């Protein structure tokens, strides 16, 4: 009968098996964490790209809304019966001028929506007086129009 004896320094088969698992699980865990970090880095990079594109589109959308405001004020000064309700195309966006509120020289209301890509910016302007000098009561950006229908 052959009796297997363990020498000093020789590992038990049970210990060897357990040690492998620990290593494997550790590698897997580190791998998962590393993968998560990598995915996050990639997503952060992609998100940053999207954000920068959104910033550009948002700037253009606001510029488009302001373009509509400038255009509408000029039209109103030229003809106070100018009704608005017009769509203007710019190079990188467009703007929509809603129907202008009020009649005559005082208390006119402008609602303007600029668009570029997925970005939309809205302006509400209350004109106190058109002529002889155009004075503005309020010029503010809004998320939704409250003064126009």
């Amino acid at each position, binding site marked *: 009968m*052959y009796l297997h004896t363990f020498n000093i320094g020789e590992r038990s088969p049970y210990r060897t098996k357990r040690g492998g698992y620990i290593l494997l699980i550790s590698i897997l865990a580190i*791998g998962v964490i*590393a993968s998560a970090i*990598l*995915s996050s*880095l*990639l997503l*952060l*990079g*992609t998100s*940053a*790209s999207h*954000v*920068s*594109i959104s*910033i*550009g589109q948002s*700037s*253009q959308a606001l*510029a*488009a809304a*302001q*373009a*509509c405001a*400038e*255009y509408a*004020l*000029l039209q109103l*000064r*030229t*003809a*106070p*019966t*100018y*009704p*608005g*309700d017009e769509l*203007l195309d*710019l*190079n*990188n*966006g467009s703007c929509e001028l809603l*129907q*202008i*509120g*009020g*009649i005559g*020289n*005082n*208390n006119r*209301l402008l609602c303007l929506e600029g668009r570029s890509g997925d970005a939309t910016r809205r302006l509400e302007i209350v004109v106190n*007086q*058109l*002529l*002889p*000098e*155009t*004075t503005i009561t309020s010029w503010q950006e809004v998320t939704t129009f409250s003064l*126009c*229908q």
Partner: protein
Amino acid sequence: MRALRNHSPQAQRRESHHSLSSPRGLLKNRHRGSLLLEAIIAIGVFVLFLGGMGFSLILGERSTIAAGDHARASFLAEQELEAVRAMRAQDFSSVSPGTHGVVLTATGWTFSGNGVVRNNYHTNVDVVSRGTDWVEVTANVAWNFGQTRSGALAITTYLTDWQKISTVGNWASVSRISLTTISGTPEFQKVVVAGNYAYVTSNRSAGGKGLYILDITNPAAPIQVASAFDLGASAYGLAVSGEYLYLATDDPAREVQIYDITSPSTLESSNLINSFDLPGEGQARSITVYGTTIFVGTLNDTVNNQLFALEMSALDPVVLLGSLNMSGSVLDLNLHEGYAYAAMDTNSAELEVVDIFDPENLSFAPGVGRDLTEVQDATAIATSGTAALIGRIAGTSIDELTMFSLADSPVPTPPPGPWTMDTGGDVLSLAIIDGNSFAFIGGTMDGAQLRVIDTLRLEHNQSPTLTTYDTEATIRGLFYDWQKDRLYSVTPSSLFVFAPG
């Protein structure tokens, strides 16, 4: 010794026997072969993993840096546009067409060369003329910080010269440009000017057609157009908004009538695009419009309300939004900062103020209105800035013109004011030049049916009359044209055009 023993032939034989004959031995042998392969695979996977990790890190970093470049470029483009906007605010003519760099100097932003490098970004603006007082401005930003860090963007907007100040003549004296008399008895009521046309309502009871249109392209010689048109009812108040003419008539079935005036010179019945039958029978007298909401005032009616808010649509029928019992006739209406100012025949409140923020729930402004001295009806109202002028039927013991301050509340709460003036006759129409102190009074004042006053002088209790004009007939309607600095007035059968000086 153990090493020698282990390498002894016996030991090797035992080892060999043990390895080949027992399953454990076979397994051990197999492990030996697999170990290398596994190690190679593991190292390979690890290298791949490290490579992916490095690639992802580099890619993520590059994306973030590129995004930062793009965002900075957007902000620079915005700055360029704001700089040009600032230039426009100082002098529109300085925004000249062409491609320019924009630089900040001690006196402000100015064009310099055809481009500027700002933090290694190349920036310039393209200015293109789109018409009189109108330019298109495109801010361009380009950058190149290496193979993967280059790009360009552009933001476009319009700038117009809406901030320029139009000159108003000196109305301390007036000169008549033209007098146009329509034959028959048109019985003109009110006048509104829009573009190159004057729209005049008339009373049909004496033979008028209800509505007259005059081409005033040459104000010195107005020409009646669409002369075959007959409204079929008397019209009183009127308003023009966009391409529509709104009329308050005595037509019992459609007191409110809306005409398409795209082509005023060929106006005919088919241009009636919408109408509304108010409660009562032909009582509408005053009308004004805000966007798509029409406000109509009627004569006193014990059964029905006298102020109505309607929703206008070119395609759908006009809808009644709300109404309010004013307890009297609404003879004139004027909108001012979310409130309707009504000239009333009510003895206890000749001026009534209505909150119109919610047309479906019309309500009196806090304080309701003002009771003027005696009982003469208020017939005309005009507002500008913080002033409200109210004109009344003549009375021996009253001043027919009253001016209130609206500085403190929608319903005037004197003091300060009110300031009054004896005009010597009925005041039937009023007009104010905004941003100025000139105001016009039209009425029955014998020999001075048109009176020009200075409201500042009235406020300082000085004689406000600057000049008068004898139109030899009652002035029923006045309209000041801001674009041309001209005053239009109508007597029962004539249209007068006045200029300052």
